[in-house]
């Protein structure tokens, strides 16, 4: 979208968001999977702001070793400090760092945007956790630590309690799922909580995200080859399983499973199904009995026939969304708040 910069500026006219920057990222050899995700993350305002805050606070520390977090922060601050409103930037340092870090992304093979997003978020969390740990073991430099990882759990100076650290990456992206399994013999319900950064949904032809989400949390029977080991019965039993969203995330990332492994072919096939996604969405929160309301802010689109081919692009405006229902790959929704169901 970088090349169309000035055109975009003209098109948006008065509606050009105050202080917003629309920058394209230069593609150097199969890095569009990475660029499209970085674009989407840049348009994730709370994430961007917290990253820039982090960058501002860490500048003073100075000689932090270069890692993906600092490279990403550096890239975002480059974009946001541009004088022009639109243009193109080459995320060279970030991509170099990425390739250094993970051999998967080193080759010129085409990579999956969803895998990259997953890798990046987990990597950021690792870095933040390591930093927080380093701070804990060295209480002298405690002042910037609150800002690095401003989770409430971090306040405990003595890391005696092994509470999982809640970083601002968690605060933005993490949700909690409850995996409920009911043994059909003894009726015991086993509930297990899992955290997630994104929801991977199975898709069907001519369906909607609402319907895919419904299927995701619908009841599934485990039987035949796929029985459940019940702790109470101490044996494999038929069971019913369902996934409930216990705590919806602030940023809801939905990944559409467009690449399906076809055993006969021995490779992945792309499902070019038409899956429509509304600009607004509601998720029910089983814990608080409330609906969380979401608004779509970015879409990563995959155009092409397979996982090793094709092109990723990013869309950030409503007009563009509507024509991309056959190719929408990762959807980014931000929570606007929640409305209680109690009346």
């Amino acid at each position, binding site marked *: 979208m970088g090349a169309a910069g000035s055109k975009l500026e003209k098109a948006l006219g008065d509606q050009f968001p105050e202080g917003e920057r629309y920058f394209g990222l230069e593609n150097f050899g199969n890095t569009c999977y990475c660029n499209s995700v970085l674009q989407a993350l840049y348009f994730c305002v709370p994430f961007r702001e917290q990253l820039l805050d982090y960058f501002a606070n860490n500048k003073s520390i100075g000689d932090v070793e270069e890692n993906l977090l600092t490279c990403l922060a550096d890239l975002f601050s480059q974009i946001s400090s541009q004088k022009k409103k639109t243009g193109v930037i080459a995320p060279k340092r970030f991509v170099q760092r990425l390739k250094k870090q993970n051999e998967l992304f080193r080759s010129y093979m085409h990579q999956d945007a969803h895998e990259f997003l997953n890798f990046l978020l987990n990597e950021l969390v690792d870095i933040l956790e390591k930093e927080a740990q380093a701070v804990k073991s060295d209480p002298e430099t405690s002042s910037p630590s609150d800002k690095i990882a401003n989770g409430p759990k971090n306040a405990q100076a003595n890391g005696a309690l092994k509470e999982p650290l809640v970083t601002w990456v968690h605060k933005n992206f993490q949700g909690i799922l409850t995996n409920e399994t009911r043994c059909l013999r003894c009726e015991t319900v086993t509930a297990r909580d899992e955290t997630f950064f994104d929801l991977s949904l199975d898709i069907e032809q001519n369906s*909607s995200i609402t319907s895919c989400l419904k299927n995701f949390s619908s009841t599934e029977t485990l039987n035949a080859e796929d029985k459940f080991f019940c702790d109470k019965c101490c044996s494999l039993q038929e069971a019913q399983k369902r996934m409930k969203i216990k705590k919806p995330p602030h940023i809801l990332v939905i990944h559409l499973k467009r690449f399906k492994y076809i055993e006969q072919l021995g490779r992945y096939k792309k499902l070019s199904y038409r899956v429509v996604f509304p*600009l607004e969405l509601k998720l029910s929160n089983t814990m608080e009995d409330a*609906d969380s309301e979401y608004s779509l802010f970015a879409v990563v689109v995959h155009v092409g026939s397979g996982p090793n081919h094709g092109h990723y692009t990013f869309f950030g405006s409503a007009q563009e969304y509507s024509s991309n229902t056959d190719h929408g790959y990762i959807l980014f929704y931000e929570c606007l708040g929640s409305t209680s169901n109690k009346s």
Partner: protein
Amino acid sequence: MHSNANGMLSTAAAAASSANTAVQSPGLKTYFKTPEGRYKLHYEKTHPSGLLHYAHGKTVTQVSLAHLKDKPAPSTPTAPSSSFSSSSGVRSAAARLLGGSNGSRALSFVGGNGGSKINGGNSRIGSLGSSSSSNSMGSSNFDGKGSYLVFNVGDAIFISDLNSQDKDPIKSIHFSNSNPVCHAFDQDAKDGHDLIIGLISGDVYSVSLRQQLQDVGKKLVGAQHYNKDGSVNNSRCTSIAWVPGGDGTFVVAHADGNLYVYEKGKDGANDSSFPFVKDPMQFSIAHARYSKSNPLARWHICQGSINSIAFSTDGAYLATVGRDGYLRVFDYYKEQLVCGGKSYYGALLCCAWSMDGKYILTGGEDDLVQVWSMEDRKVVAWGEGHNSWVSGVFFDSYWSSPNSEGTGETVMYRFGSVGQDTQLLLWDLEMDEIVVPLRRPPGGSPTYSTGSQSAHWDSACPVGNLQPAPSTRDVPKISPVVAHRVHTEPLSGLIFTQESVLTVCREGHIKIWMRPGVGESQSNNSETLSSASFKEKPLFSSKVGSSSYKL
């Protein structure tokens, strides 16, 4: 099921035995069962797809049902007499001889709404062999009555004869400058123009349907052009409707949240400018400064697109749905917002009134069919069953509840919905179950007077009060009676007629599903059926007239 060879054979057989001309798409059944019996796929209507131009962008097909009455008197200037001495008659005869000029297949009037009664209802006969088309040549000059389907695909408007089994349209009209996106037919039009068409460019045309049928060209003839080149509003038309009993007035909704009121046949000079909309969030009405202006008024309804509009049968109320997810109900003559409410989430895409004006259906991006009660001024039921966005809703005004003759206590409504999930769903709404446990009107307890509804509604809650999105717990859910996958492409609309249900997909393929019992015994008899449907005022195009409900 079949081997390949068999499959070929059966295709050939299907082509030969034309009793059901439906081409069977894989995995799609040609019937569906309901409590009252089987609906069978009777025939399909489509268009010569090779001729389409998508130069102006793809558009979604909408379909209008048009019933032409017998031509009132030969003195009408717009239509020539059937005599061949009239130049127009000669041209139309030439068209028949030239046949295929209209598409891949020959123009054919087989089994159509020919002017004479002999030819009127011979769909069975005509279908016995396609070669018989020549037999009926010259029989039709479109002077008589007939039922037609008007639908838009790409840059064209197609017109098909509803009572013929011929798949191809009998007429195509191409627009060179922009694509038509919405249209409406007024069967009670007193004179001349009865068909209105809205374009992507914002331009609007009114024409006489009969005159189009009689002309052989591929352009609109005798058209009146409104909002020329988008001079009043250049955003796309989204929905268009005649005002029931409005004496030739019609309204056009646009993608920028504005709606315009026009008077047909009035030449809008260049003086139809309206003041700038001060607050795009607020409903406001501006009237034209000069009495000669056309459009007469601009209603600014909402921010973002108005996606669909519908008048109540008596023309008193106008319902709109839009991008902002709100259903709004206006008192059309008072020009006031009466009530409305928000979807669960996302835009609303379609809306329709019950014949008695008591309920409004909406469908939208939350995959729900909502039932809005005018009495309660809120959503009284959610229909859950679509797996994607709901693109069309309609009440079946011809359906009579099996127990309606009895005590009269239970009022039942049948309605249908279609969605982008390619499904047609039919629903039964039993108001005793739905409404009574839920009645919590916002302003005091309403009285259930059967008298003037509007007076009663106006006192129930403050004018212009829009309800927020209801929460899942407060709305009773209903499930469909039938769910049937009818096409391979997302659906865009449906129409109920006396003898059938029509479904249309976005790409412009129409399927006609005969009601239980109609297909077999009465298929030779479509003339009587179609004239019966006249008296009954078909739901789609009838805007005036009393309710057909027994309440």
